[in-house]
């Protein structure tokens, strides 16, 4: 894959700057055509932001939302956890992605623990290839547990072979728990300290949890970043943030982890995170094979995305209200946004 390194004339740490579509080499008419599509087929969309060459080229909000509103971005959270694991590795909290997860939870391992459980590595969790025994992940059941981490480890204590792609939110929660086990901080606090504040993202508070019902964990009144009964930041969902901050996170990836001369996440981590493979899933990033390039996206249910298209110097953020069976978002890029690029 060709790596594109772009020179930046400013960094959006304080504020994003705006430019016209023409100025960043995009055809306004093509983008205009997209509106009709959004109004008719993407009614649950709340925000759409196109960043080209480091400038806001297009920004729209729907359903009464604005650039100041924070929203729950569901599973998009997972890609942030991926970044945090990368940072923890850079800083030496974690030795390698091949480290066995049981090393971090010695209390959960017994002489009769299965060989499968003993062999699961951080990488298995990052790539969704740990052997969970279910077809449909029961969230309600997870929410009822007194100790989520122990419950999840119990699920993995089985005799299944490793390596099958099985998307699992519970697995990502273990990654958050590993961050806490190694750094002594909640993933949320770790993110604030080592990531968000460096790239101008608003710091996020650990949510104050009175109870752990489905509403408290997944409802539309979430604030900050939710956590489990032990105070461990939810690893698979639970982050609430703004559209412009999501764009900052995507922009960091487009810039190989470097922000205004400071390496926030190592370039190798980002490369490894989005290296194409047969599951089209990297380290908690979905991979998209274009003709001879790879794009990638963080994705949360309902239609929450940070699309990163490095070879076009393009970041597209979409946020949405959670609904059943939302329309796929990638066609908007494929049919309108990418064809609008004229330089």
């Amino acid at each position: 894959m060709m790596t594109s390194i772009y020179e930046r004339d400013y960094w959006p740490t304080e504020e994003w700057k705006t430019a016209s579509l023409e100025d960043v080499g995009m055809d306004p008419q093509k983008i205009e055509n997209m509106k009709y599509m959004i109004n008719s087929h993407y009614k649950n969309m709340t925000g759409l932001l196109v960043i080209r060459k480091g400038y806001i080229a297009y920004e729209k909000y729907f359903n009464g939302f604005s650039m100041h509103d924070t929203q729950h971005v569901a599973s998009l959270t997972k890609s942030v956890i991926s970044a945090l694991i990368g940072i923890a590795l850079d800083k030496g909290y974690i030795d390698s992605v091949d480290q066995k997860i049981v090393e971090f939870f010695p209390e959960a391992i017994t002489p009769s623990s299965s060989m499968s459980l003993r062999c699961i590595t951080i990488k298995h969790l990052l790539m969704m290839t740990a052997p969970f025994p279910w077809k449909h992940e029961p969230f309600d059941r997870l929410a009822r547990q007194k100790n989520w981490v122990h419950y999840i480890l119990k699920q993995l204590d089985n005799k299944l072979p490793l390596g099958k792609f099985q998307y699992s939110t519970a697995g990502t929660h273990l990654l958050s728990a590993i961050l806490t086990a190694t750094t002594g901080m909640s993933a949320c606090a770790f993110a604030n300290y080592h990531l968000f504040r460096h790239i101008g993202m608003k710091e996020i508070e650990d949510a104050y949890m009175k109870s752990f019902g489905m509403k408290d964990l997944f409802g539309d009144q979430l604030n900050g970043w939710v956590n489990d009964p032990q105070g461990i930041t939810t690893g698979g969902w639970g982050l609430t943030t703004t559209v412009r901050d999501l764009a900052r996170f995507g922009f960091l990836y487009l810039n190989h982890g470097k922000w205004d001369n400071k390496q926030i996440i190592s370039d190798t981590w980002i490369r490894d995170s989005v290296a194409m493979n047969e599951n089209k899933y990297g380290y908690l990033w979905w991979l998209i094979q274009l003709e001879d390039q790879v794009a990638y996206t963080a994705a949360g249910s309902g239609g929450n995305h940070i699309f990163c298209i490095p070879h076009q110097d393009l970041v597209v953020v979409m946020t949405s209200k959670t609904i059943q069976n939302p329309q796929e978002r990638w066609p908007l890029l494929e049919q309108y946004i990418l064809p609008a690029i004229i330089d």
Partner: protein
Amino acid sequence: MKNIVIQGARLHNLKGIDISIPKNKLVVMTGVSGSGKSSLAFDIIFEEGRKQYLQSLGVFTALVEEDKFDHIAGISPTIAVQQNMIRQRNTRSTVGTKTNILKMMALLFAMKREISCSVCGTMLDSYFTCPQCEHVEESLPVGYFLYNNPNGMCIRCSGKGTYAEINLNTLIPDEHTTLKQVLHTVNPKPGYLKLFYKKFADYIDMPFTVIPDEVKLDILYGQYVESNSQHRSYCLHRILENRFVKDGDNSGGLFELSECTACQGFRIGEEARNVTLNGKHIGELASMTLTDLKHFIVNLLEQEDRQQQEMKETAKREYVMMQDILQKMNSLIKIRLGHLSLYRELPSLSGGELQRVFLHDHLESKMDGMIYILDEPTAGLHEREKLEVLQSIRHLQELGNTVIVVEHDKKTIEMADYIIEIGPKAGVEGGQVVYQGSVDGFMQSTHSISAPYFSGKTKITTRTNPSMVMTKHTPKLTISGANIHHLKHITASIPLGMLVGVTGVSGSGKSSLISNALVSLLHRHFHQQVDNETYAEDAFYKKQLDGKRNTVEAGALEGVTHISDYVEVSQVPIGRNKNSTILSYIGIWEKVRKLFAEQPEAKEQHLTAGHFSFNTKGACATCEGNGQEKQWLGGNYFIYSTCKDCHGKRYNDEVLSVTYKGKHIAHILDMTITEAITFFADHKAIIATLNILHSMGMGYMTLGQPTPTLSGGEAQRVKLAKELGKRRKEQTLYILDEPTVGLSLYDTAKLMSLLDELVVKGNSVIVIEHDTEVLSACDWLIELGPDGGAGGGEIIAEGTPDTLKDNPNSIIGRYLRLS
């Protein structure tokens, strides 16, 4: 239309027959095994009923009709409950799921419950706030009480209550055991062993315990792969699981089914196990017998009654739910299923039990104007139990339905409104209507083969050495302290050199005593001793065998020295592999193919024995050896037509050019057993088992008939013949579990003379039986009872049939035929 009228029925062996069946009556269709009853009842009447039903829904349009009959009229929607059709493989379905009672119980639990505080364990009553620690417990939705629901299932065993896995302690007895030893213990086929050696060359002499975990995981459980159905790369788990699933072989204890330690076999998660009704959680209730569960619910209802006055709206709903459950339970108990539990897996039920579980559904449905076709619904029932089942069937007819029962049972025949006998004999000698009319006329019929048995004119057997009696000097096998399942620490003495019948109501413990306790004790005695001898010099193996020895706790056995070996023929049906034929099943297919490969034409063309198998190298390329081509009609509908290249012969021309005594291999598959016995006269090894089948009256069958198409009775006897065909020492003990299920009295008579012959030759035979004709012909009877489940497990009577008749404790005694 008052009758179902069929003209010119000619499917399988049916000889263009005309039949008229009165509607809204209870009709019994009988005849010897293989006479064509099922072909008529299921393949014609049921298929036609189903087709008309589908047509009425507009589903069937383009079906190419198979030529089964000239004309048919009077068919209405048809429901068939056929034994091999409802043969269940899916262990996830249980009596509770099939009858929907488990779901109702789950609703009850979700409504009314006692719950313990999950923080401090204090029992809470109807309020969910713990009085001790003030923790608020959330109410649990229905799904949490169901083992098939992702919320409810025990995570460890996925809701099965058991799991099958490698017994690592047996496989790797100590820290010195090397990978090489592990592989030899598992003993895979040489080719695969080589693969292991190659792949794990670096570790082969290493003690297993010090091998890196990843490599261990790879050896034991493999890696995930798309390409095979188990989704594992080749590994020890796959080898052992295959043996276990396909052949029921636990590899000497290396792969075992054990109760789940997380849920104690209760299938559900911790959440639901914390919720109880009168101190019992749903898993405990679902493990009780239906009879016990009924008492439990009745108790609950009585408590409710006492609190009637203060009954709240929710309590009323519970009350109604309990009434509903009780009603369903009562109807199951009435058709003699009270000894089953809600968690009992359908594949483990006997044919008769399964029939009745399915029948129950229809008895509840209260539909009328239907045609029901039932296949031996009283199979496996004790004489005393039949009545209520038959009443239920009568009830089904009285609701306004036509009920056609395919049956050999005398009681059923006696209560029928109309009898049809197909015959006179099996296969080509059958396929005609021998009798149709009233029961009285049937008993008088001079054409019928079976009527004389029913009327008592012909006895099913005349024993060669009558009246053998057990004395002090009779050699015997004695099991003592048997307490498997509900057995009450009993001691049973089985006289040897005789025909011994073991009987008792369903669930009384016959199978527990014989198939479980006795057989595992015999297995321990014979096979482990052999294993020991074979590997006597190898201390490593010895150690393992000692480990295995304690796995069965069945009781103690005395007198084994009087027998030289034992053989068990169980009720487990023959596999449904469509490539399995009679020839391959009885184990002579290899020999026939070798014979063909030795012919000069074969040698010239370099054809090996493998080429003469139709599912490998020798197959017709067009149909891949199926002889048929599958054509898709859309949706779920397929039709099969004869392959136009090989014309159904399954082989390619090269293979068919090889002949032996003028016949090619496809000719052989078309031969009847009788023809084959003459044709292969010089090949003793080939004809041994065929001779036995012939003497059982099955000479009409063709060698290449796929085993899944065998009729119920045929399949049983093919299995038996296979066992009898193995060369045995004298003084062998034969153990047969209900060998007459699916047999007409005519066929039973043939079977009995075979068993008699075994006894005459100095062997011993134990039959687990309900059939009073067979029991009357035994030398000695052991009766278990008095009831099923916890109410059974004792020996209530033993002795000769004559003494049992006068024994007031015996239940079967009064049904035995006076000699």
